[in-house]
C-alpha cells in the first residue's frame, strides 16, 4: 500500500472555508489528501491544536485565514500569525521540519487560489515524506 500524505487544514469560516466552497462550486480540482476543519477564525487555532495533529499522525497542517486587513474579527489573523510562529519554534525544538506547517491567506472569492495552495502544500509534503519515517526531519 503506497503512502499518501495526511493533511489537516484549519479553514476560517469567513474566508478560507468559503474559498474552499467556491473551489468546489467552480469545479476546481484539488488534492483529496486534506481534511478540512472549519473554525470561526484562524486566530482560534491554538498552538496545541496544531501540535495535536502531528501527535495523531498528520504529516502536515495548514492554517488558512482571511487576508491581512480582511479579518471578520478585525485582527484574528494577526493572532493566528503569532500562534503559528510559536508552533514553528516548538516544531524546531521537537526536530520536526517546519515546512510541514503552512499559514496562508485565502479569501472567499479565491477558489482558484485555494486549490493551488492546497495542491502545492500536498506536493511539498509528498516530497518530505511521512512524518513517521521520512528522512527529512532531523
Amino acid at each position, binding site marked *: 500500500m503506497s503512502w499518501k500524505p495526511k493533511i489537516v487544514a484549519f479553514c476560517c469560516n469567513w474566508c478560507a472555508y468559503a474559498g474552499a466552497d467556491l473551489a468546489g462550486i467552480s469545479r476546481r480540482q484539488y488534492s483529496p489528501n486534506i481534511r478540512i476543519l472549519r473554525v470561526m477564525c484562524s486566530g482560534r487555532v*491554538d498552538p*496545541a491544536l496544531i*501540535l*495535536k495533529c502531528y501527535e495523531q499522525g498528520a504529516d502536515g497542517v495548514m492554517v488558512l485565514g482571511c487576508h491581512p486587513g480582511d479579518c471578520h474579527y478585525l485582527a484574528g489573523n494577526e493572532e493566528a500569525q503569532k500562534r503559528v510562529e*510559536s508552533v514553528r519554534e516548538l516544531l*524546531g525544538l*521537537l526536530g*520536526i521540519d517546519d515546512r510541514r506547517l503552512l499559514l496562508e491567506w485565502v479569501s472567499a472569492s479565491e477558489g482558484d487560489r485555494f486549490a493551488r495552495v492546497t495542491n502545492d502544500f500536498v506536493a511539498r509534503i509528498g516530497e518530505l515524506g511521512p512524518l513517521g519515517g521520512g528522512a527529512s*526531519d532531523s
Partner: protein
Amino acid sequence: MGVVQATLEESAAKYKVSNCIDCGKCTWGCPVSRRAGDFSPRRVVEDYVGAGNLAGDRGLWECMTCGMCTQLCTSGVEFHEFVREVRPSLRRLISPETTHSDVFQIIQNVSSFSHVKPRTNNWVTVDLEIDPNSSTLLFVGCTPYFDVVFRHLRNDLLEIPRATVRLLNQMGIRPRLLEHERCCGHDAYWLGDVDTFDRLAKANIEAIRATGVDEVVTFCPECYAALKDLYPRFVGDLGFRVRSATAMIGEAVKSRRIMLRDSGKTMTYHDPCRLSRHSNIIQEPREILKGMGGLVEMPRSGSISACCGVSCWVNCGASAKEWQLDRLREARATGAQGLVTACPKCLVHFSCAMHEHSGQNQGEVVPVSDIHVLASGSIRGE
C-alpha cells in the same frame, strides 16, 4: 523490568496505607485541602481502608504529589506514592484536567516518538564552554519549550541553562549536551501514564549511555528526580551518576570554589518539592544565597515548604492562583527584596500569579528569580 501494573491491594500494602491512625496531619498540611476543601488525603485513606476501593475519586487528580502528607505522617503512610500508583487505573475512568490546552502533554508524547529527534540546544551562546567529549553531560529538560509558551510572562527563561553552564564552567566543568534529548517523563510518571514514561526513560537512558559519560547534571529538580530516582525503578542500574547542578553550585560556593559578589540584597528561598522533600537538597541552595548577600526564611520552608500550587500541568484554577498569591504574600512579609526558586516550573507559576492575577494588589508583587541566573550574574570577576 518494565511496566508492571500493581493492583490496588498491592499498592496499598507497599505504601503502608493501612498504617493510618486517622490523625489528620496529612490533610492539615496538604496544599490542595487548604485551598479546595473537598480533597482530603485522610478521607481518601479512610475510604480505602473502610470500603476497600477508591470509587474513581476525581480528587486524586487534584493531588500535586508534593509529598507534604508523607513528610508529616508519623505512621509511615506514603500517600503521594500511593496516589501515583493508582492513577494508571484511574486514567481509564476519569482523566486529569490539563492546562494550556494540553500542549505540554502533547509535547511530552511527541517527544517520546522514536521517529522524532528533538533538538533543544537553541539557547547555547558563544561564551559558554561546551565540550563534546566531556565526561559530564548537562540534561536540559523542558525549559526551552517553556520559553516559547511563557515568553509573555518572562523572556529570560533560556538564561537558566546558560547560567548553569557558566557556573559549571567556573567549577572547571565543561559539560556536553545530548544531540537529541527527549522530555524526562517526570509528568507522565506522576500522572500515571506509565507507557509514555517507559518510552521516554528508555530512549534517554540509551542516548546517555551511548555518549559514555560518567555523570549527568540537571538544573531542573524534576529532571533530577526523574533521572536519579525514577529511571532506576524501571531499568535498574543506570551506569552513570546523576547530580543536581543546584547542589553542586551550592557546595562550590560554600567551599569558595565559586566566588560570588555581595549583592547587598536579602532574598527568600522557595524550596521546590522535587528538590527538598523528594531529594533532600535543602541546604545547598541556601549556601548560594548566603554567599551573595542575605537569606531570610519564610515560615513554610525547607522540608515543610509550601508547594508552588500546580504540578504536571494539570488542575490549575482560581484556587491554585490564590494559593500562589498567598505564597507571594508570605515572601513579601519576610521583608526580602525578592523570591528565589530553583525550579523552572515554580518560576513560571509564581510569575503567572504575579503578572496575570495579582491585579491592583501591590502587596503581592515581589520579584521572582531563578537561583542559577541570580548566582551567575554575581560571579566575581578575576
